[in-house]
C-alpha cells in the first residue's frame, strides 16, 4: 500500500457489465442457432459465420480507422447483431449479400449514430429490411429445410407467403392452412428464415434471459397478447380471409422478433408501461401489415416503426417517483 484510492461512494459494483449481459443474450441464442443448423445444414452455418465475422470486423475497423476510438468489439454486441441478422435471413442467402446486410447493420444503423447505445433502430433489423427491399426475390423465396445431412432441397415460400399468395389467387385461409401442422411450426419443420424455424428453441432462450434478469418479459408478452387478440378478432369476423391466432403467433419470425429484437435494450423503452405500449404497438402493426400490407410478414417493419417512437415513450411513460404524485 503506497497511496490510498479515494473515490466517491459506492465503493463496490455488481458483477454485471455490458459484456456479461451481451454474453447472456448470446447464450440464449445458442439453442436457436443449433436448431437452425440442424434443420438447414452447413449452409446456415456459413450464413451465420459470414454474418458474425463481418459484423465484428466492421465494428472493429470503424472504431479503429474512422472514429479512432478504443474498440468496442469486446462488449459482444456486434456478435449479437451478427447472429440476429443471420437468423433473419434464408439459409440460401449468398455470402456477399450477408456481408452487405452486415455493412448496413453495423456501418449505417449502428456506428453512424455513435456505436453501442446510440442507435435509434435495431441494427440487425435495419440490415435485414435493407436486404428485403433491395433483393426481394432472394429474400422471399425460401427452400424447404433439408436437414443437416439431407439432400432434397425443395424450393418454396414460407407459410405466410403461401397464405398471401393463395389469398390473392382466391383461395380461403382454411384451405391454405390445412396443409400446415402446428406441431411442425413449433418444431421447425417448415420453410422460413432460419430464426423462424424453431419456436421452442427461441422460447427457451427467452425464458433463460428472463430468469437471468437480463430482460423483463413485459414487452414480449404484450406483443404476443396483442397479436393473439388482434388476430382473434379478425379471425372471428371472417375465418376465410384472416388467419387464426395460433398460426400468427408461430409464424413469420414473430417469436424471434418479440423475444430478441424488440427487447434490445438500446431500442426499447425503459419503463414498464412504455414497454407495454411499445409491445402493443408492435403486435398491432405486425397484424395490420400481415392482413392488409403487401409484405406477407410484418414483424421487422413493426419493430422498426415502434423503435422510432421509443424516445417519446421514454418521455411520456416514467416510473412513479417516491413520495410524489
Amino acid at each position, binding site marked *: 500500500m503506497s497511496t490510498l484510492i479515494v473515490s466517491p461512494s*459506492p465503493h463496490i459494483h455488481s458483477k454485471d457489465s455490458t459484456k456479461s449481459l451481451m454474453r447472456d443474450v448470446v447464450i440464449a441464442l445458442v439453442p436457436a442457432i443449433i436448431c437452425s443448423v440442424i434443420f438447414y445444414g452447413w449452409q446456415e452455418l456459413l450464413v451465420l459465420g459470414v454474418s458474425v465475422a463481418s459484423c465484428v470486423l466492421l465494428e472493429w475497423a470503424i472504431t479503429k480507422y474512422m472514429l479512432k476510438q478504443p474498440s468496442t468489439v469486446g462488449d459482444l454486441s456486434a456478435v449479437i447483431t451478427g447472429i440476429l441478422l443471420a437468423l433473419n435471413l434464408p439459409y440460401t442467402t449468398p455470402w456477399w449479400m450477408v456481408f452487405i446486410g452486415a455493412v448496413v447493420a453495423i456501418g449505417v444503423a449502428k456506428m453512424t449514430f*455513435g456505436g453501442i*447505445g446510440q442507435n435509434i433502430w435495431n441494427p440487425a433489423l435495419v440490415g435485414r429490411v435493407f436486404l428485403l427491399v433491395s433483393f426481394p426475390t432472394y429474400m422471399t423465396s425460401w427452400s424447404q429445410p433439408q436437414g443437416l445431412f439431407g439432400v432434397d432441397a425443395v424450393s418454396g415460400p414460407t407459410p405466410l407467403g403461401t397464405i398471401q399468395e393463395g389469398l390473392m389467387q382466391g383461395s380461403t385461409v382454411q384451405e391454405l392452412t390445412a396443409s400446415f401442422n402446428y406441431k411442425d411450426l413449433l418444431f421447425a419443420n417448415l420453410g422460413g428464415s432460419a430464426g423462424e424455424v424453431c419456436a421452442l428453441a427461441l422460447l427457451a432462450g427467452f425464458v433463460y434471459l428472463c430468469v437471468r434478469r437480463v430482460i423483463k418479459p413485459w414487452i414480449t408478452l404484450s406483443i404476443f397478447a396483442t397479436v393473439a387478440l388482434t388476430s382473434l378478432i379478425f379471425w372471428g369476423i371472417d375465418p376465410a380471409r384472416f388467419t387464426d391466432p395460433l398460426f400468427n403467433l408461430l409464424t413469420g419470425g414473430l417469436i424471434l422478433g418479440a423475444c430478441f429484437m424488440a427487447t434490445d*435494450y*438500446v431500442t426499447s423503452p425503459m419503463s414498464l408501461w412504455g414497454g407495454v405500449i411499445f409491445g402493443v404497438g408492435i403486435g398491432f402493426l405486425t397484424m395490420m401489415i400481415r392482413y392488409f400490407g403487401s409484405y406477407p410478414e410484418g414483424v421487422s417493419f413493426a419493430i422498426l416503426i415502434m423503435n422510432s417512437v421509443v424516445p417519446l415513450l421514454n418521455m411520456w411513460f416514467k416510473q412513479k*417517483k417516491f413520495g*410524489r404524485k
Partner: protein
Amino acid sequence: MRKPTFSMGGVHPHDNKISRECAIQPLPLAPVVYISVAQHIGAPSVPCVAVGDKVKVGQVIAEPGGFVSAYIHSSVSGTVKSIGPRPDLAGRPSTHIEIAVEGDEWLEGIDTTDTLITTLPEDNKATVEKIKLGGVVGLGGATFPTHVKLSPPPGSKCERVIINGCECEPYLTSDFRTLLEKGEQVVVGAAILRKVMGDVPCTIAIEENKPEAIAHIKEVIAKLGYEGIEVMSMKMRYPQGGEKQLIDAVMHRQVGSGALPISVGAVVQNVATALAVYDAVQKNKPIVDNSVTVTGECFPKQANLLVRVGTPLRYIVDYLGGVPENAAKIISGGPMMGRAVANLDAATVKGTGALLFLTEEQTRRAPESNCIRCGKCADACPMGLEPFLLVRLSRAKDVEALEANAAQDCIECGCCLYSCPAHIQLLDSIRIGKGSVLGAIRARAAAAKAAAEAAKK
C-alpha cells in the same frame, strides 16, 4: 409470508458480514486523541476549554454552536494540548481539540457500572434535556442531533418510533453485535424514545440475515415486559436502512420530497443511537465511545471495537496489525455509502461505524462505456428517479431540468452506480446536479423571503 420491505428499487449486494462472530471489545486508550468540533450535521460546536486545562472522561469540552448542533464531551481524561485546525479524513482542515491521555478518570455522576436500569424517567422534558446534554446524535451515519429530532415542530404528531437495526450495508456488524450484546440497553432506549414521543408504538426493524438478533431482542422484550415494542423481521435489501425506505417498509407511508419523516408521523433512530439514549438518560453517560467494525476480506484481524471518540484511525489499524499490503482503499463506513479515507491520521468521530479495507480488485472502477439504455439504474433507484437522465442533465448543467426530474430527491445510496453495466459513474455526477438544484431552491427561498420582507416595509 413475504417479509416487509420498501416499495421500489433497491439492490442485493452480497452481505459479507465476515466479522459477525467478533464480540465487541474495548480498544486500549490511544496516547492522544483529536476530538473534532464538527461531528454532527448543523453548526460546529464551540470549544469551552482552554489549552492546558485538565479534563475528565465525559466532561463537556465544546458547546452547541446553534439550535441544530450538539454538546461534545472529552472521551478521555488528560490535558488539552491544543485547539486548532487539523485535516479530517478528507484532508480538509477543521477544528480539533487535542487531548493527551493521562489515566482514565471519569467525571463524577456518570454511572459506569453494568447494572441495567429499567425504570423509565417520568419527566419527558427532562429526558430530552438529558439526551441533549449527553451529546447524542444519530449514529446511523447522518449524525443529526437526536434532541432536535425528538422535538417535533408544532402541528406534527409522531405515530410510531422505528428503531433501525437493518444494517443493510454489506460488511458492517457493529449494530448486530450491539443488538446481541447490549439488547437490554437498546430495548430500554427504545422504551425511553417511545415514551418521549407520547407513548407511541415502537418497531425495532432488523433484516432477516440477523436471526440471532431478532430472536434475542424478542426474548429481551418479553423479559423486560415493555408494552408497545415489537420486532419486525425485514427482507434483505439495500438501502432498507435509509430513513425514507424504512418508513415505507414499516408503515407503508412515503415521505414527500424535501419533507421530514415526522410529516408522516415517523421518528427513526438507529440501534446505536437507542443505546446512546439509554446511556445518556439512565446512566448520565454522554457519547464518549462507539462501536466500530474493522473488516474486509484482505484484513486479517476482523474486529468489532469499542473506540473512544477522537482516536486516530492509524492507532486502530496499528492495534490490529497495520494496513495489509494488498489493501488499496480504506472506507469509513460501509461500501455503499461510506467515505473513502484520504488521510489515515484523521481521528474517529461519533458517527464512525466501520473501517473497511478493500483491495484494488474489489474497488477499482472499470472505465465508463456508452449507456446501453438498459434501464437498470432506474429499476434500482429506491426513489424512482431516472439516473441515466439525471447524469446527462447534470453533465450538461441543466439545473431547471434536473429539478423537474427530481434530482434533489436523490438519497445518494449508490444503487444506480452499483448496478450500471456500462460502469457509468452516475452518482458522482448526480451528486453535483443535486447540489446545484438544492442551491437554486435555497436561493429561491431566500429571494422569496427578502421579497416578503421588502413588501412588509
